[in-house]
């Protein structure tokens, strides 16, 4: 006969009280900080620089494998660049030398860089010419996903601290690397030889070195051997915080020192609260409405122009408030070659109808439902202005369905594929850390790349090749302004909606942190308090 368990109410109450206390002690003891009762929420002194970022890192540390803006920001702490380009409005093309000390154009196809002596990688390996050679030749391979290079390149090692960038074999001028040198992080030749090393941990020459990944936080510490001297800030944390409101609250409460990608109303809250500085700058990013040009109906230039004339860009700027600014061509106002193209299609319903009729869809009749894809959670106000654009297009008889997707699903559908990418139009910005315009226009509109639009157009290819191959910087600028930009406006593979104004907010005690117009940062001389 089995014995029944005797469990009286009194025993139960005692047992619960004991086990509750035990469980509380077990679960919370390792995390319990008994100081919390008298610690202020505003601890600041001795804190590391904590950057609350809007975008997660990829987890593959090889800089040639991604176009992730968050990771570009991370790289700006850890990696070194031959030059840096602050892109300040008063002098947007000024270059500061970093790992290079001098750049000389030997001839049209040869650019020589003298390199800085005494620099070491975080793993202790001395930096030299072989590292630049390895990085550039590796990064310019056509199979590298990032595709920031204008074409393949050979690098000649002249001596331990001199390299020559050579492009003659590939048919474009080496001068393109003048501005690009500020955007291409330099890897160690050893890591290039073993890409698994490059993928599994970042090893640069930058002011901060990678320590560990703690959940969603990436931790870096000051590099004692940094060639400019050990930075004043001992530690930098790149914390991925997906929600904008949380980033704002975290900044206001002193948990983060710097944050980015704020909505205008959150900026108002931060300003009203006091004690914070805003870094508000026209960025290298234009926001675009990209057409899927390789499939109907946007394989017809008239349809693209009809949409361009249906969009009231002034209305968009009203919605965006301080987060947007006017742009007059397919690159941002701070990019080399920017110009306000004459005849840029402005809001004009009559012209829209004219082009619709030319496309064979008078008043939109006969058009299938067109999908316009946009994202939420990263760019400001995308849903709001997406609804506005949809309403404007519907008003003209163009049947548009807006699909608002979270970032992962949107990224899934962003790029062109065989037979045309998903949907018919998609919203996206493109942001690079250099004044070099080809990082945008060649990447997206040349038939060798055509990332989002899928456009193949011999006229655009010819114009892009012509500006790339221009014999001098001056002539190139002229071609960009008078031929390439007007042609892109005429062909309209995407509608440049506005230029993004990047708003970073930071605690007042953060000094000398420089934020580039694409969001990358320089913290080597920065301090807190």
């Amino acid at each position, binding site marked *: 006969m089995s014995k029944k368990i005797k469990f009286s109410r009194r025993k139960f109450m005692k047992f619960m009280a004991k086990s509750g206390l035990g469980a509380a002690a077990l679960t919370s003891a390792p995390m319990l900080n008994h100081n919390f009762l008298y610690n202020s929420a505003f601890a600041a002194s001795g804190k590391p620089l904590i950057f609350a970022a809007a975008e997660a890192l990829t*987890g593959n540390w090889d800089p040639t494998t991604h176009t992730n803006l968050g990771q570009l920001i991370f790289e700006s702490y850890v990696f070194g660049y031959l030059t840096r380009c602050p892109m300040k409005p008063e002098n947007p093309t000024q270059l500061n030398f970093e790992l290079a000390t001098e750049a000389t154009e030997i001839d049209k196809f040869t650019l020589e860089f003298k390199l800085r002596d005494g620099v070491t990688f975080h793993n202790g390996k001395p930096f030299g010419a072989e590292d630049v050679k390895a990085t550039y030749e590796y990064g310019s391979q056509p199979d590298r996903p990032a595709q920031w290079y204008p074409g393949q390149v050979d690098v000649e090692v002249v001596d331990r601290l001199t390299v020559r960038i050579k492009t003659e074999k590939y048919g474009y001028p080496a001068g393109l690397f003048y501005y690009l040198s500020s955007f291409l992080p330099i890897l160690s030749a050893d890591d290039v030889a073993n890409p698994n090393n490059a993928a599994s941990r970042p090893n640069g020459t930058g002011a901060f070195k990678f320590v560990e990944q703690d959940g*969603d936080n990436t931790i870096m510490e000051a590099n004692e051997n940094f060639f400019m001297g050990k930075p004043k800030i001992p530690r930098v944390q790149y914390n991925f915080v997906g929600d904008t409101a949380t980033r704002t609250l975290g900044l206001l409460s002193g948990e983060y020192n710097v944050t980015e990608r704020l909505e205008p109303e959150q900026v108002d809250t931060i300003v009203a609260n006091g004690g914070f500085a805003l870094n508000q700058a026209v960025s290298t990013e234009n926001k675009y409405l990209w057409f899927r040009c390789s499939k109907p109906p946007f394989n017809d230039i008239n349809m693209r122009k009809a949409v361009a004339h249906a969009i009231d860009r002034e209305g968009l700027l009203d919605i965006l408030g301080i987060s947007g600014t006017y742009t007059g061509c397919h690159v941002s106002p701070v990019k080399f070659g920017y110009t306000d193209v004459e005849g840029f299609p402005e809001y004009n319903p009559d012209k829209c109808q004219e082009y619709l009729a030319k496309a064979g869809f008078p008043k939109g009749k006969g058009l299938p439902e067109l999908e316009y894809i946009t994202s939420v959670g990263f760019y400001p106000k995308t849903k709001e202005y997406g609804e506005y654009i949809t309403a404007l297009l519907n008003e003209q008889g163009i049947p548009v369905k807006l699909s608002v997707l979270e970032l992962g699903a949107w990224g899934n559908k962003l790029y062109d594929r065989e037979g045309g990418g998903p949907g018919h139009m998609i919203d996206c910005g493109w942001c690079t850390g250099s004044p070099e315009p080809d990082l945008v226009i060649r990447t997206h509109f040349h038939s060798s790349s055509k990332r989002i639009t899928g456009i193949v157009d011999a006229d655009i290819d010819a114009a892009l090749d012509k500006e790339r191959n221009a014999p001098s910087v001056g002539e190139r600028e002229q071609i960009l302004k008078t031929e390439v930009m007007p042609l892109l406006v005429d062909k309209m593979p995407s509608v440049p909606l506005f230029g993004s104004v990047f708003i970073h907010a930071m605690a007042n005690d953060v000094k000398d942190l420089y934020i580039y117009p694409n969001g990358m940062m320089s913290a080597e001389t920065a301090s807190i308090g």
Partner: protein
Amino acid sequence: MHLAGQFVRRILQGVVVVLITTFLIFSILRIVPGDPVRLIVGGMAPDNLVEEIAQKMGLRDPIPVQFGRYLSQVVQGDLGNSYQRPKNGMMGQGGDFNANMDVEMAEVSDLILERLPYTLQLAGLALLISLIISFPLGISAGLKPKGFMSKIAFFISSIFVSIPNFWLGIVLALFITIKLGLLPSIGYQNFAYTILPAIVLAVETCPFIIRTISVSFAEISQEYFIKSGKVRGLTRNGVIYRHTLRNASIPLLNLLGIQLSTLLGGVIVVEYIFDYPGLGQLTIYAVLQRDFPLIQGIAMVTSALYVGLNIAVDLITYSIDPRLES
């Protein structure tokens, strides 16, 4: 029925519930739009590569085949590896061609075990705060169902149940953390960071506990053995705490089992708002990144917790009141 028999029967039922839940989640993930392979290799990857990898990973097999394969791993204690989180860091959520198929990915069980203690701590504290608020309110309301305290309890419950948790979270962070500087709340550095999120969760659960206690008290107060307590010379507090409260504990215990499980679900929004590094935040990012193995693992662990808690509550109630066994 014998308690041990009850236990075995409930465990078997629990296993079936966990299996059904896991199968549902598993199937839904494969039906909804959003190809995880596209996110793994990136939007720039060509379609043929996506297909090749999907085939290699078995993601194009029929769902029952995939589920069978998954279960055979689970019974060996292997919840699989994350599609998006390498051991050395996080995966981006954009459309880049990351081409990092060679990078070692984190084990789902490690990711869950890393975050679970934080969530249990949050849910436990939330429950404790709920009880501290609910007991006095519920008891006083139950003792005089038409009295002033009953109206107060009803008023507070109505307010609490109407407040959206994300709104309350933001307001509390603004006032308590930012304006008054009393408690930190965004992120996690020590136990203090758990308090505000726990208060938000407690506000969600309080109305149900207050209601259960007050109704239960009101009913038991009408019983003869309670009414006769005073005649037997017992003090008022003696009647309340030694007799009424004990008899009211069974419905409360059942409710607590459900509420603790509900709290595990409620933490999702709260953890996201407070940047609290628990299972809820991990779930949100896993869903955004279409990280199938991680979502499945979290679903399985939380449903097992839910089932386990409810079995424990049932067994305790059987022990307290053996009549319930039948």
